[in-house]
């Protein structure tokens, strides 16, 4: 469970593309704080601190001070550049300690299966949609797969979840499994050995012309 991290945000008066570019050039990320039926507040967040909090500390909730008022916020949306290197914009959502929120959490696999039986590790679910108290969002759902065997996948219903966490995925959905590599070959063969694809608008020769 990630702790509440305090961020030194500054209120932002300028809006729009050009102003946002200037904000980013100054080492800040444009953002917005909204929720709880209060007015939205445009802010700018220090890039280095936010990057460290997200990548290293895996933080989701923050304590920020906007206009002298302390608020607890949750990251609602984070926009990245096209290469996924830099953060572009962040949405903060006001939350209370008593509130329950819907978020996604990653599934972390621990260990390697003892006996694969020729199977290949496949993880259809990398993230889970959950509902939990706003200030106790689990960092990840950790799953020990050392006893995973071929033909016995781990389903959502078999996960051990922290207290107060409700999962929205179907209970019979497979989280991780060992699958024989040969089983996926037919789906990968898209073409049936044809040199040219079938043309749907191809002109068919008329019967009279053929003779």
């Amino acid at each position, binding site marked *: 469970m990630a702790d509440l991290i305090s961020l030194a945000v500054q209120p932002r008066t300028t809006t729009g593309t050009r102003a946002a570019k200037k904000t980013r050039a100054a080492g800040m990320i444009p953002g917005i704080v909204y929720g709880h039926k209060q007015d939205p507040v445009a802010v700018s967040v220090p890039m280095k601190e936010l990057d460290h909090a997200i990548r290293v500390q895996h933080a989701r909730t923050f304590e920020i001070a906007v206009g002298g008022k302390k608020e607890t916020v949750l990251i609602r949306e984070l926009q990245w550049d096209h290469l*996924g290197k830099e953060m572009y914009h962040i949405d903060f959502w006001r939350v209370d300690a008593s509130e329950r929120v819907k978020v996604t959490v990653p599934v972390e696999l621990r260990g390697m299966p003892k006996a694969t039986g*020729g199977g290949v590790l496949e993880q259809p679910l990398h993230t889970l949609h959950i509902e939990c108290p706003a200030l106790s969002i689990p960092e990840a759902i950790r799953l020990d797969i050392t006893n995973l065997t071929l033909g016995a996948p781990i389903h959502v219903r078999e996960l051990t979840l922290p207290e107060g966490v409700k999962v929205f995925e179907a209970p019979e959905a497979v989280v991780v499994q060992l699958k024989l590599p040969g089983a996926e070959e037919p789906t990968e063969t898209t073409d049936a050995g044809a040199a040219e694809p079938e043309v749907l608008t191809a002109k068919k020769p008329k019967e009279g012309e053929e003779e």
Partner: protein
Amino acid sequence: MSLKMPKRVKYRKIQRGVIRGLAAKKKYNGAIKGNAQRGNYVAYGDFGLQTLEGGWLSAQAIEAARVTITRFVSGEGRYYMRVFPHKSVTSIPAETRMGKGKGEPEYWAAVVKAGMVLFEIGGVPETAAKEALAKVAYKMPFKCRFVTRRPNV
């Protein structure tokens, strides 16, 4: 496995749709303008190969990459191909006078924009995935980089 191509198409030949600058022409038969707004993060596997440039990725290049990845991950992990050659590229034969209409389809290509994740690998350690994707990057007509999953927020 033979080269990938669509099963059925509405038209055999389609418009080129490339930005033909001089620098782009010198590079690889045109360069694709713009950045990838989707398909630009690792979605299925654990690690991926992201392109830093735009262009056409031929079915031959995709197949070469597939063979390389298969050799590395077979029996251990899974690989995912995030691009498909939907576009037919035509050409006029050598020593042919100009005119007489558009040439015949020569190969199929995927239109790739800067930032797209071309291939993904899952179920293998990072060092093995890095090694496999470095070999694949060598066969790609673009500059590529190794990427991992984005932090979940």
